[in-house]
């Protein structure tokens, strides 16, 4: 099964090698020695994460069916976590002093990762005064960051936690061609977004193809057509390339001991320059196959890489192209037809893209849907099977764990149950691909953050306190 992914990994490796090569031939990026420190790259350390894993005890889940996220299903298996990490997955594990949880009849998966969410920026309650997801004042706003809009008290975070979501990417909306930076969060209750921020996770840049920017700006100076959209992306990246070159020249001049004046700092272009440097990952809202192909051309023109096309309802028509370019396709199981660019979505989309050897995954884009991504994957898996594709649940689970981690650039940290990874783990009451299963216990970095059977481990946000919604369950799953 793993073999299916070799071509993608190969493409990624080539891409990485290319990046390294670029890095090496640019003198400005070489470490500066023997003289006063001169910055030689764009700063990227604002709003640092203050998240630290919560206290945990060594925990051993015993005798469960384990879907590792690496195409393996192991029955009667144990999962051992300690110090926030996965220690071992296998049969007959022992650990002196560990909390032992009986997993008999239950399932274990990696924590679910949603690569496309607007929790916190379009929170519940969905009221005008907290609608902070789209800086829809001009079509190109790389200077904004979703982390500055996230309201950590959004009760939807806890609902998603009760659905097994341990990591999520919060994106700006799709009104703009370039909507700003996304942020990757650990789904822990917090009072600041910094305290949720996934340490070390790369930023994303939200971009949007298609109908939304046209609809928002068509009567406000444009873009009003698809060709206007593309002109907008190209103009922005041209400016970014020039901006980057100015700074590189400045850094080189300083390093050579020349008298040099730093260029004016532009926060938006800085973000785009970091995209060109491969440090910020492009997460692009793009439904139609023809627009995906166009965006691949644009990315080649300016030398950036698109990590993933989101809402990629037509990805199944160009799965081979996506595979060739090492681009992930992020899809729904069965959303379709709410606008023309979604008219051709089919339930087999994820399975077909996956079958073609490209990187496929689920996403929610929805505060209700995020609570049941396991069911969405189940539908996508079943649709694929019905058309004759042999998809095991061991494989399908990657559509909500491993592949999202890959798209976000955090696969070395989470997304699979492998030794040394963050202990982001879900214990399910049964087969997670059944409508009747619930996430029973959810661990984030080894800490038990949600327990369906323990009201004390059912977090509720400040907003929920003192409201009518305290019964009959209250809190996380509500």
């Amino acid at each position, binding site marked *: 099964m793993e073999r299916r992914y070799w071509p993608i990994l190969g493409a990624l490796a080539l891409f990485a090698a290319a990046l390294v090569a670029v890095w090496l031939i640019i003198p400005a990026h070489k470490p500066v020695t023997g003289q006063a420190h001169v910055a030689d790259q764009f700063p990227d350390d604002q709003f640092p994460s203050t998240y630290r894993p919560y206290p945990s005890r060594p925990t051993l889940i015993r005798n469960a069916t384990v879907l590792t996220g690496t195409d393996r299903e192991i029955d009667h298996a144990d999962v051992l976590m300690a110090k926030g990490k996965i220690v071992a997955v296998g049969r007959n594990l022992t650990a002196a002093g560990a909390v032992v949880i009986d997993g008999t009849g239950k399932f274990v998966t990696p924590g679910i990762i949603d690569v496309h969410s607007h929790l916190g920026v379009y929170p519940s*309650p969905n009221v005008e005064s907290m609608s902070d997801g789209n800086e829809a004042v001009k079509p190109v706003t790389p200077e904004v960051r979703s982390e500055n809009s996230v309201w950590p008290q959004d009760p939807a975070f806890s609902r998603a936690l009760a659905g097994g979501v341990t990591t999520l990417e919060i994106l700006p909306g799709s009104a703009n061609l370039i909507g700003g930076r996304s942020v990757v969060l650990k789904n822990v209750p917090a009072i600041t977004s910094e305290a949720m921020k996934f340490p070390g996770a790369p930023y994303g840049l939200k971009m949007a193809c298609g109908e939304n920017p046209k609809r928002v700006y068509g009567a406000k100076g444009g873009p009003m057509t698809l060709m206007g959209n593309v002109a907008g992306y190209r103009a922005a990246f041209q400016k970014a390339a020039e901006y980057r070159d100015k700074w590189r020249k400045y850094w080189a001049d300083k390093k050579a001991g020349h008298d040099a004046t730093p260029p004016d700092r532009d926060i938006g272009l800085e973000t785009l320059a970091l995209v060109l440097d491969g440090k910020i990952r492009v997460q692009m809202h793009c439904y139609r196959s023809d627009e995906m192909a166009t965006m691949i051309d644009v990315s080649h023109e300016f030398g950036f890489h698109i990590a993933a096309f989101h809402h990629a309802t037509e990805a199944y028509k160009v799965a*081979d192209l996506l595979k060739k370019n090492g681009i992930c396709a992020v899809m729904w199981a069965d*959303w379709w037809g*709410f606008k*023309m660019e979604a008219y051709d979505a089919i339930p087999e989309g994820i399975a077909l893209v996956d079958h073609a050897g490209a990187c496929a995954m689920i996403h929610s884009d929805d*505060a*209700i849907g995020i609570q*049941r991504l396991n069911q969405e994957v189940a539908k996508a898996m079943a649709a694929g099977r019905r058309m004759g594709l042999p998809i095991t649940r061991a494989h399908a689970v990657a559509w909500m764990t491993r592949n999202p981690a890959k798209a976000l650039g955090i696969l070395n940290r989470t997304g699979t149950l492998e030794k040394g990874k963050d202990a982001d783990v879900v214990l399910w009451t049964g087969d997670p691909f059944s409508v009747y299963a619930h996430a029973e216990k959810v661990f984030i970095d080894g800490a038990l953050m949600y327990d369906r059977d323990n009201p004390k481990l059912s977090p509720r946000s400040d907003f929920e306190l003192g409201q009518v919604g305290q019964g009959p369950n209250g809190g996380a799953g509500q």
Partner: protein
Amino acid sequence: MKALILSWALAFAATAVAAAPAAPLAAPATPVVAAPAGPTFFIHNGKLYTVGAAGTIAGGDVIIAGGKIAAVGQNLTPPAGATIIEAHGKPVTPGLMASATQLSIQEIQLGAAESNDSSPDLTEDTAAFDVADAINPNSTLIPVARIAGVTRSLVMPVDGAGVFFGQAAVIHLGNGPDILVKRAAGQLVRLEPSVATFGPPQKKLSRPDLWAQFRETLDDAREYWAERAGYHKPGGYRDQRTFRIDLDALGPVIQGQEPLIVHVDRASDIREAVQYAQANKLKLVIFGAQEGWMAARELAAAHVPVIIDPDLNLPDSFSDLGATLRNAALLDKAGVTVIFQPQADDPSQYARTITQIAGNAVANGMPWDHALAAITRNPAEVFGIADQYGTLETGKDADVVIWDGDPLEVTSAPTALFIRGQRIPLVSRQTLLRDRYRNLNDRHMPFAYR
């Protein structure tokens, strides 16, 4: 006056609202589509979830003939000439009903306005708006929904800012051209402020505004219907704020014949609507009802059914802070008749999620057979088509689905589908797209030739 009302009521029992100005009460009869003569099928050895008095019949057979269910039971004999369909012990259910959708009146929600007839454009408030005028039997949404087992739908207008949003209809999802099953199946009213998530900002109306307008309009309708003949006499009638066509449309509502479907979520609004309906003898249905569990006792006592999306568990407005996944189970336990709407965001495109919706209600405490009733028998009874649809029972229209597994399970799907006795191929625009693009390597000619 009273006599007039009574005579109207009697006449109305079998007639539809007159649509033309000053039309007499002898309006065209409610078009109840006669099931066509159809082929004979013998479904052998299914696990029959009849949703009727017979309950579940293991190893059961169903005979379909002339568009109807001719027999249901064990060890039936195939009629001569019947096409025999082997169910292999798999589940067999009535076709499902997705309530509160815009199936057949809306093709594309956003950016293709002319394909969308789901809400009044002409006036903010109109009881006369009738979805039956817009039904398109060739909508591509119909095959997408039916191959997931949906064979009926309560088609409803979409509400927004205002009070009256018009008349719902029941359709079947079988072969056209005539898919209208019941006209004027309910009048949709909104009595809580609307939230405009997308699109142009809507005028916000406070609850007292909404209630004042609601009461006055129904008062107007009562007065109008009490002396309908006098309406056009010069000087014989007072000016009313409500348009005549709206007053006409409200006749069956004030008579308690046609359901008044009130969209409210907050428990206090639900209680107020129940009290008003009881005092005025209206046939009330609550739509939304996210805090329904908090008013379950009152709803049950007043025999008021609810249409809910049981997956809604977020406090996404100040009208539904009490939203919970347990809503369906608690309402059901209290004795309220529960009907499910598919995914409330977009119940038309996602009509096929009705089984998942029901499955989640079960996962959160509702008995399985009650959840199945919420997508079959319950809406059939509440919207007045139980004589022809809603159970696997002799004499009903043959809306029958054979499944490859538990019908409420997300991995299950129909393997055979019958609507009004016709076998419906499991094909939609989406299956055709799937088949066109299933092999990307074959490029000897463009995909358009496949």
